[in-house]
């Protein structure tokens, strides 16, 4: 599991550049859905919460993890659903 810090940093910096170019290509009309969906995907933080909540033994860390799983789940389900709801409303001229 021990990733080398420099290789992680490389991934991070390159991803910032990818994000920069991808987000500039987003049409301004969809900036609100953009925020909603970035919100949903940043909740991938749930993977850390799952590992914390995963052990069979009871601990403070497990409680924190379970609460974090619940919070992130609100965001994941709510974020994708509300984005879907918004995007369904964008229609072309008939």
């Amino acid at each position, binding site marked *: *599991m*021990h990733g080398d810090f420099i290789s992680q940093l490389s991934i*991070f910096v390159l991803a910032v550049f*990818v*994000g*920069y170019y*991808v*987000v500039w*290509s*987003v*049409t*301004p*009309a*969809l*900036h*609100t*859905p953009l*925020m*909603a*969906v*970035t*919100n*949903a*995907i*940043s*909740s*991938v*933080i*749930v*993977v*850390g919460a799952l*590992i914390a*909540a*995963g*052990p069979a033994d009871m*601990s*403070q*860390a*497990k409680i*924190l*993890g379970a609460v*974090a799983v*619940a*919070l*992130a*789940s*609100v*965001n*994941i*389900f*709510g*974020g*994708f*659903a509300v984005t*879907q709801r*918004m*995007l*369904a409303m*964008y229609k072309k*001229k008939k």
Partner: protein
Amino acid sequence: MELQANITSLAYLVAAVLFILALRGLSSPETSRTGNFMGMLGMAIAVGTTILSPEITSYGWILGAVFVGGAAGLIIASRIAMTAMPQLVAAFHSLVGLAAVLVAGAAYLNPGSFGLADAAGQIYIASRVEMALGAMIGAITFSGSVIAFAKLQGLVSGKPVTFAGQHMLNALLGLGAVALVVYFCLDQSPEVFWGLVALAFVLGFLIIIPIGGADMPVVVSMLNSYSGWAAAGIGFTLHNNALIVTGALVGSSGAILSYIMCKGMNRSFFNVILGGFGGDSTAASASGGEDDRPVKQGSAEDAAFIMKNAGSVIIVPGYGMAVAQAQHALREMCDELKKAGVKVSYAIHPVAGRMPGHMNVLLAEANVPYDEVFELEDINSEFQQADVAFVIGANDVTNPAAKTDPTSPIFGMPILDVEKAKTVLFVKRGMAAGYAGVQNELFFKDNTMMLFGDAKKMVETVTRSF
């Protein structure tokens, strides 16, 4: 074991690529729905991979938490009004921030299960920096977003809260937080870690209170960015590339949106963040003259007559339209105009509303086709050919003083050139100044007709008068 670790890493890579494609899909409304689906797929892969990993041996609590959280999320998402989207997004940001704090806290309490400590229970130095930063940014995101939510929801006044020595206090607290991160590398005792978290909560609160309601587009974008950096910080802590990539994507997305919003107001990011803008309106009388100058006031019937005989009408919606929930009534009015052969288009200023793209969503909700809606730079040259500019719920973004009066607080802000239209119809509740506290010269021009009243009622009356 080695093979399994590789498969896990590959699955996270697939998830990260799907997230990139989800954002890429938003380049046009046609591809956006597929994009959103890819985002869901990416999330399912990331969560599924983690659930199947050997670190997870007990599923009861996880299932319960996902069920409770997921159900709450779905209910909120299906019920929320589109006008309330800014506060919903702020609330969601606060949850990401708090989740980041909790995950960092869990990693701190039980570093062994994340592989972050040596046999003696000493957390690795690099991991300490990463978890401290993740927790700190997460805590700032949480409390900042809670304040932004309260301001947007109207639970507290949208007015900036300022006091003497505010910036000095924030600077000291910021330096104190950085010092605690450094000290945490030397001493991993709980007081240091939780002290840092508490300090960051206070800091997030203090950073947002001086910022006024109409600057919320910048604040919401900035908190969006923070939530991304917090996720990336946790990704570094947990050596999880999917989390690092996603955090970087979200972080840069929020940063770009903040930049676009600042540019839309011709203000620097620091000017917005330092706050206090629009707090008192001392400039109002100085730059705009008193309200006793005559304005031309019209009735809904006059407006209906003018618009029906026009060749083209450009609608300029603003936050006031959202407050009055007038978007559906507005679209009905425009349907009538189109039936009468009038060309109707909509002009959106970058900072109209309380978050980026807020007006576009409201118009889409009211079934306005998105190819009738234009951004400032695409439509501004068309006002001079337009017969009518119909301003509903916008004010500062139409103020010609931004071009002509160097002493005005909004000087240099890009504005919609509504004054170039043959007639300007201005729907407004009264003569009050806009957020920037400046009087709008437009009200006193010969070709401007003021329509005083509630935006929704006014538009409905106009429609009936056709």
